[in-house]
């Protein structure tokens, strides 16, 4: 997993609340056998609409999603996180995330930045005026920034310390465990010889 320190990218306003995982990636896409390629299923039900925000040219190459409250509710599918990442998103900003979605995001390296509802509104307003504008999300200082001058937005976001540390260090669960590899190897040396193996 790549280390996440700070990220600046084009932000997309997704002005909907309660976007559940079925809307993020419908079940028909789950039959796949890969962890990549889910970008085509992202928000599939809405993508047919040429007016849907992701279809607008100014948001091409977007990497920050700014969504309404209760993002990621519904079934616990990790594919929802993969679909967002496969599309190119590095950050989702919302005023409230479903717990499981937030957990899955942290594990996979997608930053779920929880901000005050007013901040979401301010960013939405800013993007309305300046479609295609970038937003900066700094994980070290836990801040989001957008715009310049007197109208500039700068506010903090919430993320638990453990998830923040993992993202900063670029550690997934496996990476964390492998940092204790010496312990695993030492344990293996103590296993009785009669324990079964599948290959001889």
């Amino acid at each position, binding site marked *: *997993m790549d280390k996440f320190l700070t990220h600046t990218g084009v932000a997309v306003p997704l002005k909907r609340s309660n976007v559940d995982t079925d809307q993020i990636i419908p079940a028909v896409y789950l*039959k*796949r*056998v*890969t*962890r*990549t390629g889910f970008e085509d299923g992202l928000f599939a039900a809405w993508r047919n609409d040429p007016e849907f925000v992701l279809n607008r040219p100014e948001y091409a190459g977007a990497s920050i999603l700014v969504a309404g409250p209760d993002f990621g509710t519904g079934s616990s599918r*990790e594919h929802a996180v993969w679909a967002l990442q496969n599309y190119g998103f590095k950050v989702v900003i919302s005023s409230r995330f479903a717990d499981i979605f937030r957990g899955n995001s942290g*594990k996979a390296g997608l930053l779920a930045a929880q901000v005050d509802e007013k901040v979401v509104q301010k960013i939405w307003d800013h993007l309305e005026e300046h479609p295609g504008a970038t937003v900066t999300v700094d994980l070290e200082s836990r801040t989001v920034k957008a715009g310049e001058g007197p109208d500039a937005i700068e506010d903090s976001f919430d993320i638990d310390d453990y998830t923040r540390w993992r993202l900063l260090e670029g550690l*997934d*669960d*496996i990476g964390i*465990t*492998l940092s*204790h*590899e010496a*312990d*695993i190897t030492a*344990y*293996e040396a103590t*296993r*009785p*010889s*009669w*324990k*079964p*193996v*599948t*290959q001889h």
Partner: protein
Amino acid sequence: MGRTLAEKVWDEHVVRTADGEPDLLYIDLHLIHEVTSPQAFDGLRLAGRKVRRPDLTLATEDHNVPTLDWDKPIADPVSRTQVETLRRNAEEFGVRLHPLGDVEQGIVHVVGPQLGLTQPGMTIVCGDSHTSTHGAFGAIAFGIGTSEVEHVLATQTLMQARPKTMAVTVNGSLPPGVTAKDLVLTLITHTGTGGGQGYIVEYRGQAIEELSMEGRMTVCNMSIEWGAKAGLIAPDQTTFDYLEGRPEAPKGADWDAAVAHWKTLVTDEDARFDQEIVLDASTMTPFVTWGTNPGQGVPLGGVVPDPAEFEEEQDRVAAEKALEYMGLEAGTPMREVKVDTVFVGSCTNGRIEDLRLAAEIIKGHKVDPDTRLLVVPGSVRVRMQAESEGLDVIFKEAGAEWRGAGCSMCLGMNPDQLTPGERSASTSNRNFEGRQGKGGRTHLVSIPVAAATAIRGTLSSPADLVPAGSTHESEA
């Protein structure tokens, strides 16, 4: 203070503990199948990681493989892709695989014990919730999700919070004709589907000790259906006798060393469980489900319950919904429920002992003309053993379909599915809405009830059958 069996096995596998962190637990055996592994292997590939211990990993194809025409390419494209992906991954990462057509192929929870890979005191995981089956040998065995599958592949460990412990003591002996399946269905109705949440359960007491390994596997298999993380049973002479001589069981001096250790794997007299349940086996009777979760059951001699009689509002609502889905009227005797399909198989009841018992009851009878009987051995070995004993002939002469090995109608991922509204009596473990096919209605039953039901066409026990050879079966 003494320790429980589960605590002893757990302690033996702790690689690392740290305050405020879950234990890092070593995994002795990782079982793999085609449905929950593809993304785990893909994750390894993306991160440039290898399988740490291919020699502690075993893969088989079971969940969506066809039970007919298994020598031809799989017709369903999704199943075919999953199976082919598993084959490619096994090859690339050096994992031993028993594919369709291989003599060791079968349901992952049948294959492990049958090879002798499942042994007392082990930690065993698989991306499948019924991994609890292996607990019958005194192992800690539980199901994991796909990202954990990847974690075990890469590290041979899992981060796990230590679960609470529970004892289920079943005193007395099961009456004749009452099986391990009836015991566990009775237990689940007693506790509800969430009663075991957060616990590793040790099944003990006279009735458990008297069970064969197959029966113990049936009980442990369904631990997950009442919410338990895992279920286990202390190893004893029955366990050792089952294991001795199996292909992957220890041999010679290793065998003696292993048995000496396994004998220490019992709960100490002064150990304490966080929770205890006591049941009496001698009052148990054949037990069947009427609803859409495994905790909605009654004795076969009972009637479809009236939702109004449930005390809790949520149970009442659940019962109403279940009866509507199941197409049942409150007050109908269970014995009058007409069944379209009987499924004998699955990791709950698809072992050789199960097929022997079914054949013994069916022998000389005919399957009811309006009922279909599907017999699906849990593994190719079970199938071959059954054929060498002539069980297939008994089934076929009765009018049953004799199939290849796999999960089959347990979850209907392959073509073996119920049609909407079709009613089954199934020896499997889940009666959820649509589990055996969209709109299908499932009654969970034991092997004797399944066999007798196939003959009479309504939910029945062998006691309802007139002796084979009589022509008056349908009026019996």
